[in-house]
Structures are given as C-alpha cells and as structure tokens.
C-alpha cells in the first residue's frame, strides 16, 4: 500500500499550495479539514496488522478534523460576520512562491536530517512544508479565523511529522494532545466571537492598542 500512502503525501503537499492561493474563507476551512482527514488516514495504510487502538484513534482524528473543526470554524465565521474573503497582507502569487520555496527548503532539510529511515518517500518534507504553510497563514492573513486555521494546519504538519518519526506515544498521551487541540480551537472560536462583538470585525491588524512605545493617549 506504500504507493497509496505516497499519493496521499503528494496530495497533502498540493493542499498546502491550495491553502496558499485560496481566497474563499469557507474553501480554506474545508481544505484544511480535508488535509486533516487524509493525514488521519495515513496510519491505516502502514500495512500489516492494524491494532484496534490505531483504528479507533484514526477514527477519532478524522472525525474531529473532518467534521467537528470545520463545523466550529464555519459557525464562528457566520456568527462573527467575518465575510467570505480571506484578507491577506501579501499577494497570492507571493504566497505560492513562498510556499514552493518552503517546500524546496524542506526537501533539502528532510534529506539532511539524520532520521530513522522513513519508508514513505517525501513524508518529512511534506510535514515541514505543511508546518510552514500554517505559519504563512498565521502571519500574512489578517482575520482572526485564518489564524486559527493556520494553527490547525501546523497541527496537521506536526501530526504527519510524528508519523514520519514512528514515535509511539501511549494512547492516553495521544488523547490528551487531541483534547488540547480540540479545546484550543473551541476557546479560540469563542474568542473570535467576542472579538467580533467588541470590535465589530475580526481583523487582527486592529488588535494593536497594546504596545510599549506609543499609546493612544500620547498620540492625541
């Protein structure tokens, strides 16, 4: 089944590029969800005997990332009146160039890292590129909701990275991590709702009142 797993890895990379160029918020949320789902499928394709706990855990991840998170985020988008557009600080061509650049850098880094031999090609570069895409979303998109999305994409990347390294964590720890991510998205969703109510928008560029050198009362 390795060819299939490799196809998935290629798919994950393509989704990274899609995230970098998509202008619709709803589509972005769905792409990130899709990425989470295909990444959740990976452990089931490892071949050989699949334990029940692996199966259950993969199911939990797919359910959370594919159903719960997009639902929460779309709901936050609607209730906060976030609008349909992803607003960016840099143009889409620049975004995709950065993304491709990151992929080339990750491939180089992946070949240099002294990791235990990965049996699926490209898995390390794909995970690093995904993490970078998440950072790109956080730093260059202005809406609060895209920053949560970026956090989720980083999480996807780290999850794939964990698969690449074959680090087995006990079930309890995996569940605790998953619970944390879930609560994080949940709390951030509530925060977005409050931001939209207090500021009448969720543009984080406006969240700049707190700083050290220039306070509003000094400008006046």
């Amino acid at each position, binding site marked *: 089944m390795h060819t299939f797993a490799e196809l998935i890895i290629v798919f994950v990379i393509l989704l990274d590029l899609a995230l970098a160029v998509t202008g619709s918020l709803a589509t972005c949320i769905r792409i990130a969800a899709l990425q989470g789902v295909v990444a959740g499928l990976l452990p089931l394709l490892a071949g050989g005997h699949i334990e029940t706990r692996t199966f259950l855990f993969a199911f939990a991840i797919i359910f959370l990332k594919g159903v719960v998170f997009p639902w929460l985020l779309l709901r936050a988008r609607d209730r906060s009146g976030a609008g349909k557009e992803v607003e960016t600080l840099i143009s889409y061509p620049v975004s995709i160039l950065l993304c491709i650049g990151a992929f080339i850098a990750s491939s180089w880094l992946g070949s240099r890292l002294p990791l235990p031999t990965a049996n699926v090609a490209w898995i390390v570069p794909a995970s690093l590129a995904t993490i970078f895409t998440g950072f790109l979303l956080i730093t260059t998109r202005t809406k609060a909701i895209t920053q949560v999305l970026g956090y989720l994409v980083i999480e996807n990347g780290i999850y794939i990275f964990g698969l690449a390294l074959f680090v087995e964590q006990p079930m309890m720890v995996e569940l605790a991590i998953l619970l944390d991510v879930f609560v994080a998205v949940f*709390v951030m969703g509530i925060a977005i709702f409050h931001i939209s109510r207090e500021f009448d928008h969720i543009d984080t560029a406006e969240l700049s009142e707190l700083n*050290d050198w220039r306070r509003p009362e000094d400008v006046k």
Partner: protein
Amino acid sequence: MTNALLLLPLGAGLLAFLIRNDGTRRLLLLYTAAGHFLLALLALYEGPSPVCSGSQPAPWFAYDALGLYFLVITSLVFLGAAFFAVKYLASEKRDPGEDSEAGFIFNNAPEAVFTGCLLFFLAAMTAVTASRHLGMLWAAVEATTLLSAPLIYFHRHKRSLEATWKYLLICSVGIALALMGNLFLGAAGLKSGAGLELDTLLLNAPSLAKPLLKAAFLFIFVGYGTKMGLAPFHTWLPDAHSESPAVVSALLSGALLNCAFLGILRAHNICVAAGLADFSAGILVLFGLLSIITAALFMLGQRDYKRMLAYSSIEHMGILALGAGLGGGALFGALLGALSHSLAKAGLFFTSGLVLMAEKTKRIADVKGLWRRAPRTALLWLAGFFLITGTPPSGIFLAKFLVLRRLVELGHYWLAVIYLFALGVLFTGMARVFIPMTFGEREGKEGEKPFTEPADMMLPIAAFFVCVILAGLFLPGWLQRLINAAAGNAGAL
C-alpha cells in the same frame, strides 16, 4: 497523594460551576487552595518518590525533588492568590470596573466561570509539576494556556481581549513547537527504546542519537521558552500581565512561568545526562542574558506600572535561564530565585491591584504621592520594589549574587559586566517609577472619595514579602537540602 493533589482542584473546579451563591463559591476557592497547600506540604514531608529502576513501567505522575519544589511554590502562590481573590471578587461585584483609559464602564465575566477556571488552572499546573512523561507534560502545559485564557479576559473590554487573543495564539503556536521537540526526542531514543518517559530517557541518555537530541532541545526550548517569556519570544507577556486582573497577573508570573521553566529544565537534564551539557547550557545562557538585556531596554520607557512589573518578570526569567545554564552555585541561585521571585512578584502584583483600586488608573504619570492616599499600600509598594530589584537582605539578592559569582568563577568577565550593567539599568528604571509613585507631589483630584485600605488583602502580600526576606537571611536546612536535590534533577553536573 499525587492523585489527591490532582483531583482536589479538578473536583472543586467542577463544583464551582454548579454553586449559585457567590459567598459559598469564594469559600470553596479558599478551602481548596488551603487543602491543596496542605497536601503539597504532606507530599514534601513524604519526600520524593524513588527513582524507577527500569524493571517496572514508570508511573506518569510522580514527584521528584524538582517537581516537588515547584509544586510547593505553585501551591503557596495560589493560596495567597485565593486569599486575595475572595476580597477582590467581592469588591469587583460591588464596584464594577471603569476603564482607566477609555473611561467607560465594562462588565466582568461571570464569577462562577472565573473561579472554575482558576481551580482548573491549578489542577493543570499541578499536573505539569507531577508529569514524568514528557508527552503528558506537554499536554498539561498546553492545558494551562487554554485554562488561563478566560482568566485574562475577566474584565471584558477591548484591551484585555486583545491581550487574550495574543496570549492564546502565540503560546499555542509556541507550544506546538515543543510538541515537535518531543517528537524529535522520541526519535532520538528510538534505537534504545527510551520512549518519552523521563526515567527511561535518563537511563538511556548516553545512547540517544545526539543530533536529534540537539534538535529536540532547540524545539522544546523555543516552545516552553515562549511560555516562560524569554526574549525574543516574550511578546505576549507584557500584554497579558498588564490587562488581566491582579490575582491572575500574580498567578501567571508567580506560578505559570515557573511551570514552563520546569519543562525546559527537564529537557536540559536529559541533555546533561547525554553529555550535551555544553550545547544546552550555552543556549540557556545566551537567551537568559538576552532576556535580561531586553527587559532592561524596555524598562526605561514604561508608562504603565503593570507592564513594568511584567518586564521585571522577563528579567527574572532571564536570570533563571542564565543560572540554570551556568550550573553549579548559579543553578542553586536560579532555583532559589524561582521561589523568591514568585513570592515577591505575586506580592507586587497584588499590591498593584490595590494601587489600581485606590487610584483607578494604571498610568504611572497619573499616580503620585501614593503614601498620602494609601500609606500602607505605599509601604508595601516600596518594600516590593526593594525586594524585586535584589536589595539585600532578600532571596532575590542571594540568587542574583550566586549567578554573578558563578560568572566570575567561570571567567566570563565580560558577561558579568553586561549582567551587572543590565541589572543596574533595571534598578534605575524601576526606581524612576516606584519613587515618584510613592513620594511624588500629590495632585488632588476633584470629587475623590477617601480610600479605605482592605487589611485582609494586604495580609498575603506582607506574608510573601517576609518569606522573601527570610530566604535571604537564613535558609532552613530542609529547604537547602530540597533545593540541592532539585538541582540534581535539573542538570547539575
């Protein structure tokens, strides 16, 4: 014992959501804090649990000396905070806040949610101190972020919301990097089957893959360093500390930052055991010094006295990192500094809450001659200034001195000069704030009601300050032994 320590605040937190009566809920907070402290003392009396030999699976939650030390600090700070919070919440109820800068009235978050999150926050911090499995430690640290975010947003206005958002996002992303670090660490021990349990990792340390271990330490350092507020990852810290209520600022500074430091110390300990002491110590020294210098630079332009205290926290976190990196006597100093800083800073943040109640503003320029309006608060404010800047006798002076002595001992004269210079700048910068605030010429404001100082809110402050002074005068033998044992768990060579 460990289970009781974890379950008590967890259960009380759940209960806090159900109780309708404010008075009962405040008592619950106080009794839980007291019970938790008693349990922590009992755990201290029992001593650290024996090190796992590797024959049987290591437990995920158990206390070594280092965990025990940080548990006691956390519990003590929380007890003081609970004591302060009871009166604080009552006064907030009577007199809802007025925004000091924009001048409008804002609401507070429901008290049940606040108290519940406070107790859950304690449970999460207890889990951090008890974790023997690094994956569990990560999950617990992330939980502290999520549970404290609603606490920062207690006063519901724009600025606290902005602070909450920055805190949530920067810390969550930062801690995600620590998860990468954990994965690298797991990969480093893959051949020897070390897993992510602290005991097995330490046992198999020499056979860990070195390059991967280095990568692991870097990621864990950046991740938990963000949470600890080390420069240049500190950007969330001044915002969160200045906008949250006094109780929460005290807990963030006095308890939470230590928990993140514990995460870094665990990773450092593994590096030392694996023979990479120079590598991890170098990074700790570099970023420790950078934090002290950054704090010194930003101290000079401060206009908000709570932000100023936040920068002083960054300074002390820098000293802790520096001390841990230098090892030897400096590590002892760093651990003693963790205790003294927690108590002194928590006391100062409580006092800042009283100042805010008396003056209704956080702007330094608008507070002058505090001693005329609130003499006892002014006295505590001034005492706190001398303690936090390390004027002898105090535990902080001892800590700073031990770090300096170690710098000279190792022959890092230039670093010692930079260190002393930065501390001097910090002292001057803070004196420029504290002295006029306390003694300046008071401008009478129209229609100002006289301010009655709540004596029972000052009790925990005074108690904490006395403890800090005592720590500088003489250390009881049991505490010295505990710190020495804790230093053994924190990568002492």
